C-alpha cells in the first residue's frame, strides 16, 4: 500500500519523480551525443523506462538494498545519486568511485545502497537473494529490490534466484523491466509466456503493471515492498514499457525493428507523466519547461566539469584484486609501469 500523503506532500513527491525522469532523459541525450562525438566510450540509455524506474524508486526507502542493472539510470537519479557520481563512472576518471575500472553504465554507489553492476545479465539476482537472506537473518526490516530486463528471464540466474527467494520466503522484490527487446531479440522470441506469470512456477506472487505509468508502478511496487517487509515473501513485478533508444551506443536498431517509439510521442513515458501531473494540477507547461531547462543546465555544466578530470593513476590498475597487493602483482606493476 502506498503511504498516505496530504496533497502538498503528494505533489512534492510526484513532481520530484517527474524531475528525476526528465534529468535522466537529459543525461541520456547528452551521453548519446557525446558518445557520437567521441567524448564518451559507451552508454546504455534508460530512455523509455524512466516511469518504471522512478515509480519503483518512489516505493523504496533509503535503507533498502538495490541490485540494479545497467539501464537503471532514472532509478539511480531518483534515489539521489549525484550526477557527478554517474558521470565520473562514465568517464572512468580518477574521481570515479570504482577507479575507472568498469565500462560506462556499470555504476556503483554504496552510499545509496546500489550494489554495483556486472555485465553478465541477471547474475545480480542470486546475490540479491543472499542479501535478502542476510536481512531476514538479522531481522533488519529493510528489503532488497532487484531489477533485470525481460530477455534476462531466460537466464540460469533468474531461475535460481526466483526459486531460492521463494523457498526461503525472503524480503525481496524482483522487477522485470520489460522493454520489449533484448538487443535485437523481441520478447516473443525469448519466451512463450508473459514474464509475470513465471512467478507461479516458483510459488511466488506475480503481477504486471503498465511501466509507462509511474503512479501505477509506484503503487504496485509499494504493495510488493510492504508484503516483503511484513515477512510475507517475494514478488515478481513485470513492468511493461518500451526501449525507445538503441540497446546501447553500439547498437543499430534499423537492422531489426521498425516499430520505434519517438520521444515526445504519446507513448513516451515522460509525456504520459507530464499529462497526468497536469491533469492533477500539480504542474503546468511552464513548470515542465523550467524542469527541462534546469536539467539541461545541470547536465551540461557537470559534464564539462567531470570531463576534465584526468584518468586514474596507472598504479591503481593493480589494486583491489585481493585485499593486499601480492608479490606477483608488485612485480608486474614494476614491469608494466
Amino acid at each position, binding site marked *: 500500500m502506498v503511504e498516505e500523503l496530504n496533497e502538498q506532500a503528494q505533489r512534492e513527491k510526484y513532481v520530484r519523480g517527474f524531475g528525476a525522469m526528465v534529468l535522466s532523459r537529459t543525461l541520456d541525450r547528452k551521453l548519446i551525443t557525446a558518445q557520437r562525438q567521441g567524448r564518451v566510450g*559507451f552508454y546504455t540509455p534508460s530512455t523509455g523506462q524512466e516511469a518504471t524506474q522512478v515509480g519503483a524508486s518512489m516505493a523504496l526507502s533509503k535503507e533498502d538494498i538495490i541490485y540494479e542493472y545497467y539501464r537503471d539510470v532514472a532509478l539511480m537519479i531518483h534515489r539521489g545519486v549525484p550526477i557527478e557520481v554517474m558521470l565520473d563512472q562514465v568517464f572512468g576518471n580518477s574521481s570515479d568511485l570504482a577507479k575507472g575500472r*568498469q*565500462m560506462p553504465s556499470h555504476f556503483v554507489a554504496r552510499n545509496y545502497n546500489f550494489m554495483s553492476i556486472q555485465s*553478465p545479465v541477471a547474475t545480480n539476482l542470486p546475490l540479491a537473494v543472499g542479501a535478502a537472506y542476510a536481512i531476514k537473518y538479522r531481522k533488519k526490516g529493510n528489503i532488497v529490490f532487484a531489477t533485470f530486463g525481460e530477455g534476462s528471464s*531466460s537466464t540460469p540466474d533468474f531461475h535460481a534466484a526466483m526459486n531460492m527467494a521463494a523457498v526461503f520466503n525472503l524480503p525481496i522484490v524482483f522487477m522485470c523491466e520489460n522493454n520489449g527487446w533484448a538487443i535485437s531479440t523481441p520478447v516473443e522470441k*525469448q519466451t512463450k509466456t508473459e514474464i509475470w506469470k513465471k512467478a507461479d512456477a516458483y510459488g511466488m506472487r506475480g503481477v504486471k503493471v503498465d511501466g509507462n505509468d509511474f503512479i501505477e508502478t509506484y503503487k504496485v511496487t509499494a504493495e510488493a515492498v510492504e508484503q516483503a517487509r511484513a515477512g510475507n515473501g517475494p514478488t515478481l513485478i513485470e513492468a511493461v514499457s518500451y526501449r525507445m533508444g538503441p540497446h546501447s551506443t553500439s547498437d543499430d536498431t534499423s537492422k*531489426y525493428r521498425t516499430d520505434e517509439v519517438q520521444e515526445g510521442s504519446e507513448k513516451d513515458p515522460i509525456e504520459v507523466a507530464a499529462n497526468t501531473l497536469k491533469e492533477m494540477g500539480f504542474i503546468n507547461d511552464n513548470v515542465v519547461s523550467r524542469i527541462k531547462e534546469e536539467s539541461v543546465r545541470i547536465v551540461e555544466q557537470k559534464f564539462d566539469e567531470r570531463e576534465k578530470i584526468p584518468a586514474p593513476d596507472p598504479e591503481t590498475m593493480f589494486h583491489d584484486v585481493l585485499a593486499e597487493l*601480492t608479490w*606477483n602483482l608488485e612485480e608486474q606493476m614494476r614491469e608494466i609501469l
Partner: protein
Amino acid sequence: MSSKVMNMVQSLNSTMDLRMSQDDSIILLGEDIGKDGGVFRVTDGLLDKYGEERVVDTPLVELGIVGMAIGMASSGLKPIAEIQFQDFIYTAMDQIINQMAKLRYRTAGLITAPLVLRTPYGGGIRGGLYHSQSGETYFAHTAGLVVMTPSNPYDAKGMLSSAIDSPDPVIFLEPKKLYRASKAEVPEEDYKIPVGKASLVHEGDDVTIITYGSMVPLVSRAVSNNSVSADVIDLRTLVPLDINAITESVRKTGRVVVVHEAPRTLGMGAEISALISERMIEYLYAPILRVTGPDTPFPYRLEEYYVPNEKRIMAAVQKVLEFR
C-alpha cells in the same frame, strides 16, 4: 582462382556462407545472430540467405546454446554456435567442460559432439572487465576440446573451414581487436589450414617469440621495427599444440619469449614454458620470459596499460638476448 580483399569479419562471414551453401547440415545459433547479424556482424546477411531454421536467434541463455549445439551435433547436424562475448561463456562452462569435452570419452566414441563454438575475445574495444577477457586457459586445460584462434583474415577462413570439418568440438576464439583491423587477400573457394599447425610468420636466428591471435600483428611489427632476428611463431591452434614447430625453433635460437594478452598466472605461456624446459632445457641460453596481461581483471580506462605493447615485448626480447 579468384580472391577478394577482406577483413576478418568478412572472411569469417564468407566462410560460413560458402560452407552453408554446400552443406545443409550446418546450422548457426546464438543471440542476435539473425536480423542483427551478430553484434560484430559476423553472421550478417546469412539469415536472409538461409532462413530462420538455419540461422537461429536463441533466447538469452548461453548454456542452452551450447547444450543445444551438442545435441544437434550428436544427431548429425553441424552446428556453429556463437557466444556474443567470450566473457559470458562461463555461464555455459559446465556444458563445455562436462558435456562438450567429455561426450566422446565417456561413450568411447559412440556419441560425439563435433560442433564449432565461435566467440570474440580479448581487448581492443574498451570493453572493461566483461567485454575483454581472454579465457583460453579454461578451454586449453580441459581435455577433449580443440582450441583455435586466427590472427588474420586469410587464416581465419582456412581455420574456420577446418574447424567445421573437425570430428572434435572446437572452441574458436576470434580476436575482436583484429576483426576490422587488417585486410588481406582471401581466396573465394574453400581451403583449409589444418588443425594443429602453427605458422612461422617471421624467421630469424636469435630468439623465438611464441604468440597467437590478437598479439601476432603486434609481435610482427615489434620484430620488424626493431630489426630483431627472431622466429615468430603464430600457434594458430592452442590444443593440440604444434610442439614440432616450437621445438625446431627453440633448438635453433635457445632463447624464448611468449606473448599473450591473457593474465600471466597459468596463461598459455606457463604451459609453453614448462614444455620447453622439460624437453629441451639443455638448448636454452636464457630464461623463458612471458609478456602477458597482468593478474588482474581487465580494466576499462587503463586498457592500454593492460594489453602487451611493443615496448614491453622489446624489453623482454632484449633481456633474453642479453642474458648470459
